């Protein structure tokens, strides 16, 4: 395999290198255990839509929705982060101890999430919009909410430590202006900075802002729970989506970081940082903080300017990162006799899936259209497209690359073709069903309504 990326500049002791590889494989192994389980929860929800369980309390639908949502986003974020960390270890030296601690805390957090949702029947959705979590009308007990929020706090601490350590490692080698490639904007090309460093720095800084938003959010929840101080639901919703949207966006970018670093090794062309790349990713760092407003189009106590800002940021954010990365990928493979292994094929397919899902996302972020699509299956359809057919394929591509590299084995071509065909046909088939259904449905008509909630709404109404 051609060594296209910048030469490794960090020397690791063999034992350290092996430990890092083991940890990355452990994250990968966790992924292959949890992903099917969380996928089965998704299947359960679709079967519920099809009225397969007419006598089952609908609260289970929402409990599954909650665990599926938070589980999938968190799972792919941590796998993406661990993969990027592994790739970065050629250039910088992240702490193995912090990575191990994050792994342990994450597993503990996941365990608590499972208890909160499957035992405590916490069912407020991953977004746990205030004030629902502590005012469930008897659908779940307050202890379940406590466990859910504690789980999020633990995950937040784990990932914040991880992010801080990664930035520390980058800061040991690069100045901030170098890590963000500002010298490229001035026309300079030295020092050479791999795109992986640029994208990771941008993503990690952005993810830190999301984690801070989550801390503030949890503090407001605690004030409400323990001191009886009510929070502003609109402020809480802003904070939830600040955190949630940034986390999902960053997960995407971690997949893209892998693309920039791994794909060139298969096509034999280097992917170097340029002024355009630097501009694009610095713009992302700015725009990602505002794009989340598109989750609040229905909240009209919020000034119109914020909604417009949400639409403009959502449109603009797709230009630099997506267009630069997607066009870059196409240019890279155009007329190239690359080696089409499972890894490179998945990375390429993931990039194209990101484009397809991204277009659907931009459509949904258009205010006039969002009024029609809000609460329809278009919402899960578009994010499943860019997530499942985008970042999931990219990260799987990285894992295929890593395992092939470590094992030294090439996968049989027939197996590769079978895996790719199943993933693409199954994935796009699944996403297309939701997209097509979205066009014929009315808002929220896929949601079962718990009996108690209906009675409660009548009483309140």
């Amino acid at each position: 395999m051609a060594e296209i990326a910048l030469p490794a500049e960090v020397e690791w002791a063999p034992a350290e290198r092996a430990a890092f590889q083991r940890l990355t494989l452990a994250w990968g192994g966790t992924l292959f255990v949890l992903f099917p389980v969380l996928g089965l929860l998704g299947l359960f929800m679709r079967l519920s839509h099809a009225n397969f369980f007419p006598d089952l309390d609908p609260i289970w639908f929402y409990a599954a929705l909650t665990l599926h949502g938070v589980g999938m986003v968190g799972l792919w974020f941590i796998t993406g982060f661990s993969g990027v960390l592994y790739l970065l270890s050629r250039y910088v030296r992240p702490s193995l101890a912090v990575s191990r601690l994050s792994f342990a805390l994450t597993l503990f957090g996941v365990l608590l999430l499972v208890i909160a949702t499957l035992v405590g029947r916490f069912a407020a959705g991953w977004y746990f919009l205030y004030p629902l979590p502590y005012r469930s009308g008897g659908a779940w007990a307050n202890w379940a909410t406590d466990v859910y929020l504690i789980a999020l706090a633990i995950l937040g601490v784990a990932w914040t430590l991880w992010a801080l350590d990664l930035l520390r490692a980058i800061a040991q080698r690069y100045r901030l202006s170098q890590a963000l490639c500002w010298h490229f904007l001035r026309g300079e090309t030295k020092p050479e900075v791999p795109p992986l460093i640029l994208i990771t720095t941008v993503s990690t800084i952005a993810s830190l802002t999301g984690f801070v938003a989550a801390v503030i959010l949890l503090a407001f929840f605690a004030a409400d729970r323990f001191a009886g101080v009510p929070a502003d639901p609109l402020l809480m919703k802003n904070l939830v989506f600040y955190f949630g949207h940034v986390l999902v966006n960053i997960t995407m970018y971690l997949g893209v970081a892998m693309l920039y670093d791994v794909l060139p090794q298969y096509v034999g062309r280097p992917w170097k940082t340029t002024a355009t790349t630097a501009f694009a990713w610095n713009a992302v760092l700015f725009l990602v903080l505002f794009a989340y407003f598109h989750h609040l189009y229905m909240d009209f106590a919020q000034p119109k300017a914020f909604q417009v800002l949400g639409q403009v940021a959502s449109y603009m954010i797709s230009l630099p990162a997506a267009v630069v990365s997607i066009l870059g990928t196409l240019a890279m493979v155009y007329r190239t006799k690359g080696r089409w292994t499972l890894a490179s094929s998945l990375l390429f397919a993931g990039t194209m899936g990101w484009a397809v899902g991204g277009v659907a996302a931009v459509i949904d972020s258009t205010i006039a259209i969002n009024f029609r699509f809000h609460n329809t299956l278009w919402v899960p359809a578009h994010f499943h497209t860019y997530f499942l057919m985008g970042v999931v394929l990219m990260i799987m591509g990285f894992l295929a690359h890593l395992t092939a590299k470590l094992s030294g084995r090439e996968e049989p071509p027939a197996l590769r073709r079978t895996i790719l065909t199943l993933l693409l046909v199954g994935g796009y088939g699944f996403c297309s069903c939701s997209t097509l259904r979205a066009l014929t449905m009315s808002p929220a008509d896929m949601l079962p309504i718990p009996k108690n909630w209906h009675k409660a709404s009548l009483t309140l109404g």
Partner: protein
Amino acid sequence: MGSCLRHRWSKVIVTALCLLALCPFSPAQRRGSDENERLPPREEEVIYGRVPDITVRTIVGKTQRLSDWWQKRPVLLTFVFAHCAGVCYPYLNSLRDAIRQVGGLGSDYEVVALSFAPEDAPTELRLMAEALRLLGKERAYWHFGVGEPKAMERLGHAVRFWYRRIKGTNQYDHPAMLAAIKDGRVIRLLVGATVSPMRLREVLQELKGEPVLVYPLPDARMPFRCFRYDPKTGAWRPDIGLLALLAPPLLTAMVVLGLFRRKAVQERHQASEGRTSFDR
């Protein structure tokens, strides 16, 4: 003695079994099922559903279809009956007052009040309309009429309106409700004995495709709010809670600058050391 006791026990058991067998038909059971049927109509069951385009005989002697109205502009459809001694008259008054307060009648929508009572004729409904004391301009956009019973049944089902005759009277039990219809589809249901102008305004906003405002109720104990929003005027002003949204980027910027500052200091230090050795 023993045989007498056995006989008594067998009577008790037979009676108990009979009572158990009758349970499904007991008044309590019937009441339960009636109560379920008489729940207020649920908007989520009908939203965006099609409304049958029935024929209506109006109090001005015209026969026309519902679509003749909704093709011009959206329609607020309500159900009443002429001899109503209950909610109909207060409800129509409440609707009229709310409409006067909110405005838009004739330009944005029209009102259609249909009688669901099979015995009602347009002439009887005319008295009802007169009792409403509509102003001259309003009369052109308030339409009263009756439909064929079967057609009314289909229409009622489409918007989940129900009614039951109260035995021994000429009265009906029915919900007071309003269905907002645009292009033949149900956009909103407004259920309740009085029409609040604020709720009506929301319905009209949805009919126009405008967003419906959602805002937290004022609470003096709420220390941090993003905005203060006035639902009457739609005006907002920023509040201290907005700072909570600025905190994530600001705190992150401080942390990141702190982390990277060490490298800059290190470089400066190395540069100054290099200069010192050169000077020597």
